[in-house]
C-alpha cells in the first residue's frame, strides 16, 4: 500500500448547520452532552465519508463533537468551567490585555469562552475515547485523534486568582493534565488509534505573539509569558506526557492561528526559534503548517540532522481556491531537501473548522483540497517509490 507520503488531516471538519443548532442547545443546557453526541454521530459519519472518498490514509472524526479543539474538555472534566472573557475579566488585574484581544477579534466579551480550572480536575467522562470508539466502528482507515496538548490546556485554564483555589500553582495543574492525558493516550492506543496528535498551537504565540502585537486566540490570552521559560515548560510537559508510551504514533501540531480568513490577522514567523525545543520533544512527528508565506522557509531546517517525522502542511485550509497538485509536489520536493522522504506526511496546514461556529471553509472546498492533496501524494509516490 501507500508506504511513502501518507496523507492525513490535522483534525476538524466544517460542522453542518443542524449540528451547530444542537451545539447551541447543549451550551444553553437544553440538552445533555449525550443527547448532543448522538446527533453528532451522523455529522461524524459525513466527515468520515468525505475523508474516505478523498482517499485520505489516516482520518479523524472531524472533531464534530467538540465546540473547538480545546474548550470541549469542559464537557469531559469536572473542575473546569467554561468562562466567558467577561467572567474572566472580573478576576484578573491586567484587563487591558483582554480588551486588546476583543478589539483585535472584533467580538464582545460575552462571546468568547475558555475552560478555566475552578476546582480539582477529575474525569467526568473520557476526553476522546467515545469519539475514537464511534470512529473505529465506522471506518477501516487508520485513526488519528487530536488531543489538546498539556501546555495549551494549562495555559488556557490557569487563571491565577480563580485557579489557585484548586491548585497551588500552574505547575501543579499542569501535572494533573499530564496524568490525565497519559491515561487517555493509553486508552486510545488500546482502543485502536494509530496516531495521537497533541495540539500546541500557542507555541508560536510565545515567540511571535508579542512582536506582532496580535493576540493569538482565546487559548493563549489568559496568561502572560516569558518566552524561554514557557517554551522549556511546554517541552517538559509534552515529554512528561509521552514518556515511555509506545505502540502509537505521537505527534505535536503547531500553527500560527486558524480563526480567520484574514491572513494578516494571524501570526507570522518561521520555525527557527522553535527548532531547539522541537529537537528536545520525545515525539514521533511534528505536524507543521507550511502552505503560507507566514510559516517561513523550510530551509530553517537545513542544519538540523536526523529530525523526526514531518507532517507537512501543503494546503491552506482558509482559502476558497483549491491548490493544484503540482504546487503541492514542488512544496514536498522542497521538504525533501531537508527531510528524509520516508519521514514526510502530507496534511493541510490546520483544520477546516477549528471553531465550530466560525469554520474557515466549506465542506465541498475542504473535500477538493483533500482530493488534490491525495493526487499529489500519488504523483510523489510514483516518483520516489
Amino acid at each position, binding site marked *: 500500500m501507500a508506504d511513502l507520503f501518507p496523507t492525513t488531516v490535522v483534525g476538524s471538519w466544517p460542522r453542518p448547520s443542524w449540528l451547530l443548532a444542537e451545539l447551541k442547545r447543549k451550551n444553553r443546557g437544553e440538552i445533555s452532552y449525550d443527547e448532543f453526541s448522538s446527533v453528532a454521530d451522523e455529522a461524524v459519519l459525513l466527515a468520515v465519508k468525505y475523508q474516505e472518498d478523498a482517499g485520505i490514509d489516516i482520518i479523524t472524526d472531524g472533531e464534530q463533537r467538540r465546540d473547538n479543539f480545546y474548550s470541549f474538555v469542559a464537557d469531559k472534566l469536572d473542575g473546569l468551567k467554561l468562562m466567558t472573557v467577561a467572567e474572566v475579566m472580573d478576576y484578573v488585574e491586567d484587563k487591558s490585555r483582554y480588551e486588546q484581544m*476583543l478589539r483585535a477579534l472584533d467580538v*464582545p466579551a460575552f462571546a468568547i469562552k475558555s475552560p478555566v480550572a475552578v476546582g480539582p480536575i477529575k474525569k467526568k467522562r473520557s476526553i476522546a475515547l467515545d469519539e475514537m470508539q464511534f470512529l473505529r466502528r465506522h471506518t477501516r482507515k487508520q485513526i488519528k485523534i487530536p488531543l489538546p496538548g498539556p501546555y495549551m490546556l494549562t495555559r488556557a485554564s490557569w487563571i491565577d486568582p480563580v485557579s489557585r483555589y484548586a491548585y497551588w500553582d500552574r505547575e501543579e495543574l499542569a501535572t494533573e493534565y499530564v496524568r490525565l492525558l497519559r491515561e487517555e493516550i493509553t486508552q486510545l492506543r488500546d482502543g485502536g488509534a494509530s496516531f495521537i496528535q497533541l495540539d500546541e498551537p500557542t507555541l508560536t504565540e510565545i515567540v511571535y505573539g508579542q512582536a506582532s502585537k496580535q493576540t493569538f486566540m482565546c487559548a493563549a490570552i489568559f496568561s502572560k509569558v516569558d518566552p524561554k521559560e514557557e517554551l522549556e515548560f511546554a517541552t517538559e510537559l509534552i515529554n512528561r506526557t509521552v514518556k515511555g508510551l509506545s505502540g502509537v504514533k505521537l505527534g505535536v501540531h503547531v500553527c500560527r492561528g486558524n480563526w480567520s480568513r484574514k491572513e494578516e490577522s494571524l501570526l507570522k514567523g518561521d520555525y527557527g526559534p522553535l527548532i531547539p525545543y522541537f529537537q528536545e520533544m520525545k515525539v514521533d512527528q511534528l505536524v507543521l503548517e507550511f502552505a503560507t508565506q507566514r510559516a517561513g522557509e523550510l530551509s530553517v531546517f537545513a542544519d538540523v540532522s536526523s529530525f523526526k517525522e514531518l507532517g507537512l502542511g501543503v494546503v491552506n485550509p482558509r482559502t476558497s481556491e483549491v491548490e493544484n497538485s503540482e504546487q503541492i509536489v514542488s512544496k514536498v520536493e522542497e521538504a525533501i531537501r531537508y527531510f528524509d522522504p520516508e519521514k514526510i506526511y502530507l496534511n493541510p496546514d490546520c483544520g477546516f473548522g477549528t471553531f465550530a461556529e466560525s469554520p474557515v471553509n466549506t465542506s465541498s472546498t475542504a473535500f477538493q483540497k483533500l482530493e488534490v492533496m491525495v493526487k499529489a501524494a500519488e504523483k510523489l509516490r510514483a516518483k520516489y517509490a
Partner: protein
Amino acid sequence: MAEATLNGLNLERLKEIVKEVASQPEKAEELNVWRARVRWLGGFRGRAYVRDHTFIIDEPSDLAGVDTAPNAVEYVLSALGGCLTVGFILNATKNNVKIDDLEVSLEGRIDNILTFLGLSDQGHPGYREIKAKLYVRSPADPKTIQDIWSKTLETSPVGNTLSRNVKIVPEVSVVD
C-alpha cells in the same frame, strides 16, 4: 404568584414608574436634575461623589497620573456605553423582546489633544467622534434589533448630550 420579569426587570414596576413619571410633573422635574461633586485628592486624582456613591478619577501614568482609575474622557465613553445599554434594555423590554447578552464597545477620537496641554491652538481638545458598537445576542429578528437600536440612539440622554451643544455655566469661589 411570582411577578413577571423580563431582562431582569419587573414588568409591573417598570410600567408603574413610566406611569408615575408621565402623570406627575414634579417627578419628571426631579429626574431632569442630576448632581455630582468632585474633590481633588492631589496630583491628577479626584474623588467623585454622586448621591451615596463615590468613585475615583485619575489619569494614566503617561499623563502624569498614577493610573488608579479611568480618566475623565474614559468616563464619558463609559457613560455613553452605560446609557445605550440601559436604553436598549428599556426599549427591548417595553417591546417584550428578550435579550440574552449585550455589550457596547466604544472608541472616541479627540479632535486635538495638544490643545489641552497648551501645545496647539488648532482644533479643540474635545471628542470629535465616538464610535459605539453594540453586540447583542437575542432570539429577536435582526430588524427588531435594528429598530430598538435606532430608538435607543434617538432617545439616549448621554447620546443627545454629546451630539448637541450643552451650555456650561461656570462659577468659581475662592474659599479661605
